[in-house]
């Protein structure tokens, strides 16, 4: 447990010192979302109809951009070697780093999402499910993305490759995340979709740290 808190504390401190990184991700989320009214036109009902999906897609892309660096910095400066040799189970270290990533990028994305939803005229009933769905879905995004980020360590075109590897795996999260918002807009309960998202999170928490650890071990080999 101490390895978990130590790594988490260090990554949070680093993110705090380099808070511009987190802000850039949030800024990307905002600008990408703001592009949509220009693309589809500013009609209120059109925007309201697509708001949930747009916010989910842009949040996925923003998270993906930041995932690129989750292990790359440690890999390049030799810290990853030392973390593998920390004597603590590597999946625990992985979960700590993923937690730190989620706290420093996932949470800010969730916090600004209602603001961006306002610009897309999301009806009032959608806000609660949107935030809840992001809250349950973004940890899975970080967990699954970590596997991809570990796999592309040392490749020539890590960032683009990461999108190709990870985006297909995000489709279930996107489907149920958007469906949760849409259900609320049509007056249906969104709890079933939120439960499925919670189920995905549990599954990802079970499998992804092991896969990430295996990928990291072969990356330092």
């Amino acid at each position, binding site marked *: 447990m101490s390895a978990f808190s130590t790594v988490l504390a260090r990554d949070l401190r680093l993110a705090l010192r380099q808070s511009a990184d987190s802000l850039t991700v949030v800024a990307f989320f905002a600008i990408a979302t703001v592009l949509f009214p220009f693309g589809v036109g500013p009609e209120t009902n059109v925007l309201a109809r697509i708001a949930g999906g747009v916010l989910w897609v842009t949040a996925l892309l923003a998270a993906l951009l930041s995932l690129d660096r989750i292990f790359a910095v440690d890999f390049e400066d030799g810290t990853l070697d030392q973390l593998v040799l920390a004597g603590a189970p590597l999946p625990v270290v992985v979960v700590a780093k993923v937690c730190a990533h989620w706290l420093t990028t996932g949470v800010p994305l969730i916090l600004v999402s209602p603001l961006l939803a306002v610009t897309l005229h999301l009806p009032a009933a959608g806000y609660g499910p949107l935030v809840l769905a992001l809250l349950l879905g973004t940890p899975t995004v970080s967990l699954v993305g970590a*596997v991809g980020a570990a*796999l*592309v360590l*040392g*490749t*020539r*075109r890590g960032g683009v*490759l990461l999108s*190709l*590897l990870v*985006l*297909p*795996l995000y*489709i*279930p999260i996107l*489907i*149920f995340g958007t*469906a949760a918002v849409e259900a609320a807009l049509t007056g249906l309960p969104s709890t079933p979709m939120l439960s499925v998202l919670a189920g*995905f999170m549990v*599954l990802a928490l079970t*499998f992804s740290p092991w*896969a990430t650890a*295996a*990928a990291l071990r*072969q*990356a330092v*080999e």
Partner: protein
Amino acid sequence: MHRFANPTQFMRIADAVYPWAAGLSLILFLAGLPIALVTSPPDYQQGETVRIMYVHVSSAWLMMMVYGIVAANSAAFLVWRHPMANLVAKASAPMGAVFTALALITGMLWGQPMWGTFWVWDGRLTSTLILFFLYLGYLALGDAFEDSERGDKAAAILALVGSVNLPIIHFSVEWWNTLHQPSIIKMDGMTVDKSLLLPLFLMMGAFTSYYVAVLVLRLRSELLAAKIRNARMSQVAVNQAAQPAE
């Protein structure tokens, strides 16, 4: 199991299988194509378009079988470090990607007369498209490293992650499909007339034995590539001090 881990042993079996697979494939194509194209009756609902089914279902069958083979061999490679398992996965994946593309395109050609459009976000077509992206990711990752051994391992891990995710993706897409397009005609509900089964099985058999035969050729090719790489490597190291090898 260790019998198959040894490349020489493995290739002895593979080489013995090769003429049978190649011959069987040829015979099945020669027998299946005339039946599929000429003698089998058109479907009472779909007319002659049903003939597309014979190639579509065959390539769809192979795309799934090959992904299963890639995933199983990746697991064997990661767990037992069997070099031949790695080569089987590596040699199969590009074929799987081509079969997936073929399944997609023939699916579109089949769907156009049926639905009046080339593309619908039908559960099967969508899942096939995602599987195609998984294949592309596997191929791109395996190719992205300077050190090909690292590429092999990374791609193997990705294949396993993909195989865990595929059922989840399939379930999600099916659910999403029923949510948004409940009225679309679904391929699943179609009952296949008995007269269509013979050409279908002949073509599936022909495709499968084709895959096995070409796999053996590709394994020979991969083994040669590995030997060339080793030879190059040892030439680089040839100025080092000499001691008897193990």
